């Protein structure tokens, strides 16, 4: 995608998004509700067309020419209520260009895999929402697409089915398929994706591997639980390299000076204060997410200097380099 822009009336849904997703990777789209995730995905799918900018999918000018090689699970789940489950899947696969020969056993095989073999002859309207979702997932992978786009695939699933679906997605990834999925459940993104795209207010605000994001958003903080009750802030503050200490939920959150080695700081703290537990704070995607969305006014989401994180964040989205401190 190259500076793609899409407006609905006066509302700008997507503003100048650049994006390239390498083959065989698994990308997570995160972002708050209404951020433009679905619009972006619909543009990739050529269901919507950008007002300006360019995009190419699977080497073609638009997805129109390669629809049969893409599997799509839209956010709005839809099935033909009166159609039988197996027939619906066969119809979708045929619409995707598959031959009817050998299709039926294939559909049954998939239904068995998601434990829905017994509903093949039932009408779609008789299924529960979670079941319908699994049926739809089958519809999106049945024709063995090279690119699988899943919009909020986990919403509304129970933990068992969530795990089932996660395994299925990982399996597709292992088979060399490119997977893009959107979610606002951060744990899902963290556990599946190797690359995260975050869209906020129609703009791309994050585009990196999970590891890079973690290190960039490293809060340079250490959690310390002192062995003795009471406030040990003063003692910890005295340790060289410690920028600030504050108490949060019964433990000390120690922020380090920039460039300070965490291992060394930890050892210094241990010698300075008797402690029962000490650990390096790792940023979760949720922290990053809330940080970006709330613009750094999230209260206790991250126990670090908000301004600093914002600067890091902005440094991540290239064009705003000069704002970085």
């Amino acid at each position, binding site marked *: 995608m190259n500076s793609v822009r899409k407006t609905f009336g006066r509302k700008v849904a997507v503003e100048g998004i650049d994006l390239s997703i390498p083959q065989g990777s698994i990308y997570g789209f995160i972002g708050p509700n209404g951020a433009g995730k679905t619009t972006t995905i619909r543009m990739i799918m050529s269901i919507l067309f950008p007002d300006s900018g360019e995009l190419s999918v699977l080497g073609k000018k638009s997805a129109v020419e390669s629809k049969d090689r893409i599997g*799509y699970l839209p956010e709005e*789940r*839809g*099935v033909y*209520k009166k*159609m039988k489950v197996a027939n619906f899947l066969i119809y979708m696969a045929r619409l995707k260009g598959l031959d009817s020969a050998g299709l039926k056993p294939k559909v049954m095989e998939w239904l068995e895999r998601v434990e829905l073999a017994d509903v093949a002859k039932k009408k779609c309207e008789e299924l529960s929402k979670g079941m319908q979702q699994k049926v739809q997932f089958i*519809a*999106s992978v049945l024709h063995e697409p090279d690119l699988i786009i899943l919009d909020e695939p986990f919403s509304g699933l129970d933990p068992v089915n969530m795990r089932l679906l996660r395994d299925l997605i990982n399996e597709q990834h292992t088979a060399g398929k490119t997977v893009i999925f959107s979610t606002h459940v951060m744990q899902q993104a963290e556990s599946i994706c190797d690359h995260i795209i975050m869209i906020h207010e129609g703009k791309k605000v994050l585009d990196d591997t999970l590891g890079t994001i973690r290190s960039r958003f490293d809060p340079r903080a250490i959690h310390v639980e002192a062995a003795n009750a009471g406030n040990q802030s003063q003692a910890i503050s005295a340790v060289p390299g410690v920028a600030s200490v504050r108490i949060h939920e019964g433990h000390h959150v120690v922020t380090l000076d920039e460039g300070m080695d965490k291992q060394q700081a930890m050892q210094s703290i241990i010698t300075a204060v008797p402690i029962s537990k000490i650990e390096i704070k790792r940023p979760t995607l949720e922290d990053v997410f809330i940080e970006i969305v709330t613009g750094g006014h999230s209260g206790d989401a991250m126990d670090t200097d908000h301004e600093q994180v914002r600067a890091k964040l902005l440094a991540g989205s290239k064009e705003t380099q000069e704002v970085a401190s």
Partner: protein
Amino acid sequence: MNFTKIIRVAGREFASTAMTKGFIIGALVVPAVMAALIPLIVILSASAQPSADKGTIYVLDRSSEVFEDLSHRLSPETVRERWEDRAKRASEFAKGMMGNSGGEQIENAMSFIKTPEFRIIPTAPDADIEEIKAEIRDQMVSGVELDDPMYKVLAVVEVDIDAAKKANESEGYGSYQTFFRPKLNEETVGEIESGIRWSIRERRYENAGLDRTQIAELASIDERESKEITEEGERKESSEIATFLIPVASLVLLIIATMTGGQYLLTTTIEEKSNRVVEVLLSACSPMELMTGKIVGQMGVGLSLLVVYNSVGIAALIAFNRLDMISGQTIILFFIFFLLAYFMLASMMAAIGSAVNDMREAQSLMTPVMLVMMIPYFFFMPVVRAPNSMLSTVTSFIPPISPFIMIMRVSSTDPPPPLQIAAVILVNMVAVVAFLWFAAKVFRVGLLMYGKPPNLRTLIKWIRMA
């Protein structure tokens, strides 16, 4: 455009509409059952006839010469003979009209009607008529069951003394008077009345010295079928009913077929949109492919209705031996006009279906469409009366009502010239392209728009947008 996808969408559209129990029962079985029921109803209503009247007729014959003929004419044997003969003639007539099966049905129906049976009793020429009439009243008042039903008095006939022979040359003939027991079958009354008149007439001919057969010969003129002279030759004279029947039937059939397809198209489009299945579909095919597939699929639904109803209609015409009322050319034109009308209506339906969120919202946008569809009904009378009037010609050129007006004209006994038909088809083809273009624009934008239903202004905006 990928034709395989269009065909698959169309196939599903057709199957999900026409291969349902509801559709097959509603559209196909009901008319078939009705057609099968009609003869059954005829038979049932015939067999529901009241039992035949049996009883006595008193004849006070003051002329003293009518009774003999009357007693022969109303004797059980001659009555039965006459009734059987009448049933046979009716069935032969029906065979000519409706084919062998129709004739048999009439014959069956007639066999259920029971022949009346009379006992003709003369009274003394000087008997008191009041006394005889009193017997009917007494029988009814007492209500006693008679030993033999034949004793039941059905009627009293009083024949004037000069009924068959004038008293003197300057005066006219006398007449007769009948008194009936109430609630007799119509056939019984008719049988008795005609029997008396026949007997009196018979006596009059004889008294005047005339030969009955000669009179019959003189009075009867063979009927021949009248014909109309046309440009091509001659044809059976078209009756008033026939001139109306075919154009009206054609119009109604065309409206039913187009509306059925159009209505289903609207419903399935709204269903796909409100089910949110549309986005999955759009990941597999383009909006144009989807719309084209749906329109083609429902066209199949409309066409199958047309084929079934047309075959029934043609079968009926064959049965009534009136196949001359329609020509092969009319049938071909019928299908052409169906396609033109259907594509225009379907475009509107697809556009509306894609623009709204549910059936309720569709109603307000449907109102103008339905009003347009009503127009052909208003023009039905003037167009059928004068298929080539200025009004008929002008309205023929206004899409989307044009095909409906044209179907009335081409199926009338006075179809428009071929050049004009061709011109109308051309105009409609242009209109169809315009309608489809408009629909495609709205369809593309509308399908994924949820929320407030659009009004005409937003629709125009969408057209500009797409």
